[in-house]
């Protein structure tokens, strides 16, 4: 996963994170965004269900 052709720190002159130059960063960003949305949806549903239990 080293983002430079030559696996050497002396070749690094800029971005050095995993997947730089490939699809991984964008893919990970989309997954992270989806996680946030899904968690909010699940949270809203479960909280709404619990609140219903207190409806008179």
């Amino acid at each position, binding site marked *: 996963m080293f983002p430079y052709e030559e696996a050497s720190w002396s070749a690094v002159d800029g971005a050095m*994170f*995993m*997947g730089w130059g490939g699809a991984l960063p964008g893919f990970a960003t989309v997954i992270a965004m989806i*996680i946030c949305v899904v*968690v909010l949806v699940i949270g809203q549903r479960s909280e709404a269900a619990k609140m219903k239990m207190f409806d008179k």
Partner: protein
Amino acid sequence: MEEQIAELAAKLAELEAATAGAAITNTMFAETFYYLTIPLMIIIHAGFLAYEMGASRLKNVLSSGVKNILAFAFMIPTFYFFGWWIYWGLPTGITGAAGPAGISGAEYASSIAWGWGDAAQYMGPNIADQASGVFFGAFALFAATTASIMSGAVIERIQTIGFIILAIVLGSFAWVVAAAWGWHADGWLVTKFGVHDFGAAGLVHAVAGFFALGVLINLGPRIGKFNPDGSANHIAGHNMPLTVTGLMLIIVGFWGFLMACVIVPGEAWSWFPDKPSTIYGTPITLSALSFNILMAIAGGIIGSWLFTRDPFWMMSGALAGIISTASGLDIYFPALAFIIAFSAGIILKPCADWLEKRGIDDAVGAVTVHGTIGLYGVVMLGIWGAGYPALQGAAGEVPTINLMGQIIGAVVFFLLGFVPGYVVSFLLKKLGMLRIPEGAELAGMDVVKVPAEGYPEWAAAAPSSSAHPAE
């Protein structure tokens, strides 16, 4: 012509003066950089103090605090006496041989890390040495952190002196050996297997977490924790808001902890003249830490909230988020750090429940948060970071990060924590120095050990000795 030469000589003198000034400024910056990590890391201990006291019942609140404060106090001198020597002396193994970087081995350690003889010049005020004291301070605070990790797990039933002995073994020996092997540039785990653990997920957190597990096996659960059928009762601490605030303070202190893992540039002992590096000599920036720590905290909180909705586990999730990514905070992409931390937040509570079902009473979930998640973080880096040179240099000249190396590192960190924790606590148990007597535990440790009251105005009304119905 003579005028031009004089002008050039004057400019050269100016340039030399400016260079000398810049060097002094850089040295002052480097010293101040590490100096400031020390109070930041003391905030970790303010956090541990608050969260342990909050997690204790009213009858034990002050004794939990005393134990925590005393452990901190004993870590500093014992790390000064021999812990610092171990870090420099044992990277290549227990033989104390010198390593390839020339900054390790028993002879080298004995020349810089003893408080007597010629070595003492590096262990006290010295106008020619602006590095040793602040490095020592940062490492002593790492040591104190390991003791505090164990401290929370054993609250409400451990003897004070027995606990302090355990804290010294952990903080000034066990984790230091792990740091020498897996953190030092001459460490055999690094040079032979490419182990990379930038933020000490394994060599601090996992070692401390599994040391605590070894102790807990011999210490046993609090009275009332488990029913005769083996099912567990929840023993609530007396002050959840204090506990949660304490956990947040630990998060604050972690910025200092991780900052102290960075080697600043431009000094004789720096890896680079112009850029900061990790302790392994690989490049890093504080911006990298900023991106990844924040995303990891967020991921851990969100992951643990999903299934627990409990502020204690949410803040523990924040810690788990940092710990699960700590090994690779220098090279993770922030969104990837978020995803890994999220997964750590999700598995956190089930792992703690699994341990509880096996009869282990870990009062604050330290074994899981620091031990299990620490090893998870070490292994995760082996999956995602494979191929990165683990040290300064090129693949081939130096080992690369790889899954097998990280697994080997994880196993070694587990053993370095669990074995001493189990053996020393077993010996203390045989000597009658591990657990307080049943009567004292039921009465509450504050009334037995502490000549002060946590909440004197509440004393008459508070259920200070009721604890749990199962008692």
